[in-house]
């Protein structure tokens, strides 16, 4: 377009003297440099055009995306021509990317309200071949035609176009800087979160840390809520300062769940990130009473983001902003969501660590219990052997019966130890999540119990172990060695918990229940009994009553082993007991081949 050389031509047809034109253009260029927005640029352009070209009015219009014009500036005198000649001129200039001039007003005499005739000149504002807007000027006469001939109007337009382009670049820069700022903020919060979250593997500490991570960066309040089975509980809160905490607690106190006022602050799960601008909502007048209460309580905006682990919602993080100028943006929501992702990972890691630690502790307890249980028979075995050896050395004529009974005790100890090791192996197998390999065969329970009674009696001299049954035999498909361990464990247990001695009665009978036939084995002692409060737990592994942690070590794994074996056979075990009277353990084993309860691969190889 035209350069500064055009000034020489102005004197010929323009209304302003050349010096004034130069001064006016200088002032115009300077004003454009200061212009803060497109409206200011347009206004300067029109004013300059009016004074330099002698137009009576005019305006600047931008093209909307739908092809219609949006008038940025229109002078009073040109208002009447908007939508008619002014629009025609501007659209034509924008379409052709060059100035256009025409006269109008002829043939409008019939309408007394119509504006007087005149001429119109429109020039496009073009930046790098892109039409940004058009400036249209109205003249009371046909001066537009003359003005069109000179380069002053395009010059004004070009300067305006450059200014608009500059503004656009600046706006882009501001936006970019904002994005950079957002990225920086995001990186700062998230990297801080990552380093902080890895410092602890303790679940409780991690939850507390998570709540403090982004306060006040993402809000003045932060709540961490976690699903606890069916309910959602608040596990941690963090506040930017005491006054914020007081405000939050006041709102929470006023609005207990169910009152329908500020339930948004109560623990709840969300399935996707949620951003609510409380201020904007209440200013729009469409806010619910609840949001208005929040606004009154000082809440400017809030975001809620889900905490998910293994694609399952495990909780929610909520950030509340109480500063109207720092209401949450879409970017804040993104940051909060990403933060929640990291927090969820950390919580999951802490949970797994916790589980692992508990498993290790259980294993330690298990090993301690096993070591303890093995120690007694080992001690007896060792001493008995030493005593026997010493006696044989000292008295060559030791009676044969002494030797035999001593060796019987040694064998008894070895049998006990063997059973403990079998229990240990089964327990270890079950602990690693595998089921027992049952070796099912035809077994006669009566014969098995009779044999067990005979072998256990020598180890319990103060007790009389009796079998009472009307069955001559009772056969089922069971794992003989394991059923024998069930009997051994129950009898040993009965001996152990009846220190005063007495009868231990084993009963075997047949029963029909639930349409099935069962073999029922019961072991009754007259010992110290089991307190009612402990009864539900006697079959659990290494139960540690919190009031007597040291007492249970001798309990070992016998009874839990009994339950595992019986249940895997498709049966069940129960106990009745009265303190000071005694206990009766009852085992039911199915007489038919177990079906549903038989685990895959659990049958004999």
């Amino acid at each position, binding site marked *: 377009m035209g350069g500064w050389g055009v000034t020489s031509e102005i004197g010929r047809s323009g209304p302003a003297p050349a010096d004034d034109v130069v001064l006016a253009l200088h002032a115009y260029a300077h004003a454009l440099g200061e212009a803060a927005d497109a409206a200011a640029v347009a206004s300067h352009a029109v004013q300059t055009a009016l004074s330099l070209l002698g137009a009576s009015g005019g305006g600047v219009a931008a093209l909307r995306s739908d092809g219609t014009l949006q008038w940025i500036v229109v002078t009073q005198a040109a208002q009447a021509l908007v939508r008619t000649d002014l629009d025609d001129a501007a659209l034509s200039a924008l379409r052709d990317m060059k100035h256009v001039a025409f006269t109008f007003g002829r043939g409008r005499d019939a309408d007394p309200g119509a504006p007087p005739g005149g001429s119109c000149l429109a020039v496009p504002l073009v930046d790098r071949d892109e039409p940004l807007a058009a400036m249209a000027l109205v003249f009371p006469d046909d001066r537009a035609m003359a003005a069109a001939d000179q380069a002053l109007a395009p010059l004004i337009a070009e300067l305006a176009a450059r200014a608009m382009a500059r503004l656009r670049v600046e706006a882009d820069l501001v936006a970019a800087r904002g994005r950079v700022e957002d990225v920086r903020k995001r990186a700062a919060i998230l990297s801080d979160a990552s380093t902080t979250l890895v410092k602890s593997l303790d679940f409780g500490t991690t939850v507390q840390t998570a709540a403090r991570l982004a306060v006040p960066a993402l809000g003045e309040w932060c709540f961490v809520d976690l699903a606890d089975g069916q309910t959602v509980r608040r596990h941690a809160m963090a506040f930017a300062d005491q006054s914020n905490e007081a405000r939050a607690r006041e709102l929470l106190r006023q609005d207990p769940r169910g009152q329908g006022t500020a339930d948004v602050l109560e623990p709840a799960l969300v399935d996707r990130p949620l951003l609510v601008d409380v201020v904007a909502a209440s200013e729009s007048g469409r806010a619910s009473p609840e949001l208005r209460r929040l606004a009154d309580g000082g809440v400017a905006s809030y975001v809620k983001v889900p905490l998910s682990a293994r694609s399952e919602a495990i909780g929610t993080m909520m950030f509340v902003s109480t500063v109207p100028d720092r209401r949450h943006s879409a970017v804040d929501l993104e940051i909060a969501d990403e933060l929640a992702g990291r927090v969820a990972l950390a919580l999951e890691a802490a949970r797994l660590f916790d589980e692992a630690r508990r498993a290790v502790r259980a294993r330690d307890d298990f090993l301690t219990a096993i*070591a303890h249980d093995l120690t007694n028979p080992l*001690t*007896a075995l060792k*001493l008995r052997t030493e005593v026997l050896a010493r006696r044989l050395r000292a008295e060559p004529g030791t009676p044969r019966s002494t030797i035999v009974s001593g060796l019987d005790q040694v064998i008894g*100890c070895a049998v006990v130890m063997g059973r403990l090791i079998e229990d240990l192996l089964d327990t270890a197998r079950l602990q690693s999540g595998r089921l027992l390999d049952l070796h099912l065969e035809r077994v006669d329970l009566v014969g098995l119990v009779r044999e067990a009674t005979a072998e256990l009696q020598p180890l319990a001299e103060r007790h009389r172990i009796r079998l009472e049954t009307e069955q001559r035999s009772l056969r089922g498909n069971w794992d003989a060695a394991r059923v024998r361990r069930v009997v051994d464990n129950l009898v040993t247990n009965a001996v152990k918990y009846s220190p005063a001695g007495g009868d231990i009665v084993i009963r075997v009978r047949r029963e029909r229940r639930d349409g099935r036939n069962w073999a029922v084995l019961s072991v009754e002692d007259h010992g110290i009994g089991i307190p009612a409060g402990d009864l539900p737990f006697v079959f659990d592994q290494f139960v540690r009553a919190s009031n007597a942690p*040291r007492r249970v070590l001798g309990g070992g794994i016998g009874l839990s082993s009994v339950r595992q074996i019986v249940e895997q056979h498709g049966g069940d075990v129960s106990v009745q007991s009265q303190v000071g009277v005694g206990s009766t353990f009852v085992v039911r084993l199915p007489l038919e081949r177990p079906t549903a309860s038989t685990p895959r691969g659990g049958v004999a190889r």
Partner: protein
Amino acid sequence: MTLAPPRGRVLVVEDDDVTRDLFAEILESEGYEVAAEPEGRAALVRTRSWRPDLIILDLVMPGVDGWYFRALQRQIPRLRDVPVIVISARRPPWREEDMLEPTAFLAKPFDLDAFVSLVDRTIKAERAASEPTESHFEVAGPR
């Protein structure tokens, strides 16, 4: 008033039948007079008519266990100063609240000789002190 047997009286409190009988057999063959009970309550009843010179105490027992027995024993004047050898698979250190403070400790399993000589030394030390005063703590047996 009965004359104490030459080597002294030993009360064994141990729940495992085989082990308890072995302790009794060994100590009797060493010349001690022995009473053996499977838990603490029966043992306390026994001491009403039979004051031991030494108590051999298991810890994990049904009924009145070793900790409970020890706590009761320290409250009873006639038993307070009787030395106690704790025999258990559970080794020291015990926690403070256990309040066991035995004269000696022997960890299961142990050697016959270690057992016999610890009993002998403990009773001799007890005899040597004309008046029963301070107890000494000793840990013997394999670790």
